[in-house]
């Protein structure tokens, strides 16, 4: 069938023949790998025998006994080298071809961008922990009236930068945002926001009851609540993306 990109996709019979051919190729490649393993093992055994520390008088003329028959070491060496050479040739002959490499699921640009977003959403909360917990001290300096200029700059940056990084990543509508915005991503985002909403309600209710008991504790708990409310949906999205990538 003709495709928009000008390539001709295989017909049904061609597709099945392609799959059969790839299976044969993979089987032969695995067989070659087994032979390589056996040959390597044989050479390893020979090396172990030579390096075992037993006194040798004749070097490769020494013999070992296999099945009650004395076999010179040089015979084993020649056989091992022959097996290794044959296996090496077979491995090269049946190395993964373009067809096999094609069947390995190389992620496209859209997948790479989405995975990059998931990694960003996982890492961002970790980076923000120190900043969020530093905020009360910074604001305390401002309220006390002896804050240096850097505190005036850092405080709004820390206040808005973290939510902005999370929300901008999830809600951006630029060129990259449109590429990220397929319907699976939207569904994962909806699930993540739902989880985040539930957690936010629990956190706010907890803070509310804490405030009734000890108002000062509520204020001290606000940074942690902010962190939880932004981290949970971000990590939920990253987890859902990882699960979809792994096994659907």
């Amino acid at each position, binding site marked *: *069938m003709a*495709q*928009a*990109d000008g390539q001709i*996709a*295989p*017909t*049904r019979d*061609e*597709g*099945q023949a*392609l*799959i059969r051919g790839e299976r044969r190729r993979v089987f032969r490649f695995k067989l070659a790998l087994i032979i390589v393993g056996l040959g390597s093992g044989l050479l390893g055994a020979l090396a172990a025998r030579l390096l075992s520390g037993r006194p040798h008088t004749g070097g490769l003329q020494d013999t070992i006994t296999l099945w009650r028959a004395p076999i010179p070491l040089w015979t084993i060496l020649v056989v091992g080298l022959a097996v290794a050479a044959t296996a090496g040739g077979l491995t090269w002959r049946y190395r993964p071809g373009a067809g096999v490499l*094609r*069947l390995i*699921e*190389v*992620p*496209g640009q*859209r*997948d790479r961008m*989405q995975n990059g977003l998931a990694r960003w959403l996982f890492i961002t909360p970790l980076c923000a922990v120190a900043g969020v917990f530093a905020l009360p001290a910074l604001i305390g300096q401002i309220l006390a009236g002896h804050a240096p200029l850097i505190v005036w700059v850092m405080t709004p940056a820390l206040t808005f930068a973290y939510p902005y990084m999370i929300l901008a990543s999830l809600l951006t509508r630029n060129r990259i945002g449109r590429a990220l915005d*397929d*319907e*699976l*991503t939207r*569904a994962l985002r909806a699930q993540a926001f739902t989880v985040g909403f539930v957690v936010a309600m629990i956190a706010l209710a907890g803070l509310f009851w804490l405030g009734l008991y000890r108002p000062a504790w509520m204020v001290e708990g606000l940074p942690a609540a902010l962190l939880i409310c932004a981290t949970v949906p971000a990590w939920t999205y990253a987890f859902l*993306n990882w699960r*979809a*990538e792994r*096994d*659907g």
Partner: protein
Amino acid sequence: MAERGLGNHLKALRTERGLTQAELAQRVGVSRKTINTVENSVFIPSTLLALALARTLETTVEALFFLVED
């Protein structure tokens, strides 16, 4: 009332045509994850995506998807 799920023949039809998940995703214009989740019945695609998948695989939506009664 029995609960309905959505089954599909996406993997069978895709492999019959010799396409990988990544290739099908590129032709349809979605991520490979989307194809993966649809194949495993984890994600129910929209009508738009179902039609795009059927058109790309040169089949019908009815041949691609079916209802599963629990």
